[in-house]
């Protein structure tokens, strides 16, 4: 069982600005991976590197064991839905399906027709006149009917209304259930991903802050609240991700592999959203000495 994406020291610079730096990552197979981070954190860069649309400046990346876009066979194994889901505005829905059939040897025409039927897309309609949600669904259909082993989606739901968003994710999850496709999808809103992701990568300021299975991450993080106290007095093995203090009270979000026994603390589990927001907050930059969970080092 190889990783769907393995990166080592991966970096991409545009002119002199690093869009992604020192990215070392091993995403295992069979997951729906959420790639979360604020806008401009490098999510699109990482996905485009994985899709082979751009080449790394530093380091290496392999996708399904091969260099991205290495050849037709590799391309056939990876589906990609780009940000803003570009389509050929002057071509019809049917033309797009034909495009998919012509360019992909593994094209599943019945799946494509079934999905466009379910979506109520008129095959004769020009793609330029589709709504944002329909366009996203068309792009997803193209990517799914290619029958890839890995599907990369760059902010697919960002521009959709809540109903279209739910519908899009529902279709995506059905495909995952049916074909066992691995998925990596990015978003700047963790709420979009909370339902569907079982693996999470948090990207902040072009670097990976945390990556791992959602259940492991949730199990390893606790919110502690109690009387005011200096976080430096915590036992080894408890790393503070986020802290806030009032005159009398201290509230911490810690990462720990051991249960917290200190009776002074009220210990509560954290939600995925709390966890991601704590990592995304630039005020909570982890000092370099502390290892980052889930990273292959």
């Amino acid at each position, binding site marked *: 069982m190889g990783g769907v994406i393995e990166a080592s020291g991966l970096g991409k610079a545009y002119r002199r600005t690093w869009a992604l730096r020192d990215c070392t990552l091993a995403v295992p197979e069979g997951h729906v991976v959420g790639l979360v981070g604020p806008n401009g954190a490098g999510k699109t860069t990482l996905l485009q590197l994985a899709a082979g649309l751009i080449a790394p400046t530093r380091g290496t990346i392999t996708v399904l064991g091969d260099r991205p876009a290495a050849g037709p066979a590799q391309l056939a194994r990876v589906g990609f839905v780009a940000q803003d889901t570009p389509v050929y505005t002057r071509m019809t829905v049917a033309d797009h399906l034909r495009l998919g059939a012509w360019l992909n040897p593994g094209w599943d025409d019945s799946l494509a027709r079934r999905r466009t039927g379910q979506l109520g897309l008129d095959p004769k309609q020009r793609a330029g006149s589709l709504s944002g949600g329909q366009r996203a669904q068309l792009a997803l259909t193209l990517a799914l009917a290619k029958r890839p082993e890995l599907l990369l989606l760059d902010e697919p739901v960002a521009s959709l209304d809540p109903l279209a968003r739910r519908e899009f994710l*529902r279709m995506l*999850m059905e495909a995952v259930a049916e074909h066992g496709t691995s998925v990596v999808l990015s978003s700047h809103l963790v709420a979009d991903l*909370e*339902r*569907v992701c079982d693996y999470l990568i948090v990207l902040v300021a072009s670097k990976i802050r945390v990556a791992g299975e959602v259940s492991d991450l*949730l199990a390893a993080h606790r919110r502690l609240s109690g009387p005011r106290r200096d976080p430096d007095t915590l036992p080894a093995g408890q790393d503070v991700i986020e802290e806030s203090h009032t005159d009398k009270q201290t509230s911490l979000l810690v990462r720990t592999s051991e249960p917290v*026994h200190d009776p002074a603390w009220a210990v509560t589990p954290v939600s995925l959203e709390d966890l991601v927001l704590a990592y995304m907050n630039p005020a909570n930059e982890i000092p370099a000495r502390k290892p980052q969970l889930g990273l292959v080092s």
Partner: protein
Amino acid sequence: MIEFQLDETSGVATYLQLVQQVHQALRMGVLEPGDQLPTAQQVVARLAINPNTVHKAYRELEREGLVRARPGLGTFVTRSPSGTDPATQGRFLAELAGWLRSARAAGLGPDDIEAIYRTAFRDCFAEGVA
């Protein structure tokens, strides 16, 4: 067959919500041994959740011995959760009701009572975990 619901504000992990809903359905008699659980595909189509979450919930239920996956057929209920003997349940219900009445008589309001219950509940189960 049961239909799962999802409460996104509860803070309870999705797979646990599914497990709990099966427990409840068994307790209420909605599900009985021999009944089939919805397939992962069906749950996913309804709730737009990760199929792995459904698999995880079903694995958990299987580990508890409540359901059994039959390859190619689906997942079926094998037995009801243990400790659901109606007589035992009735005894604890009566005891709790008695406690509630005495608390109310002592002048505690619903919020006070709920806070006490939650604290006791948490302490009790936290001990078990730790």
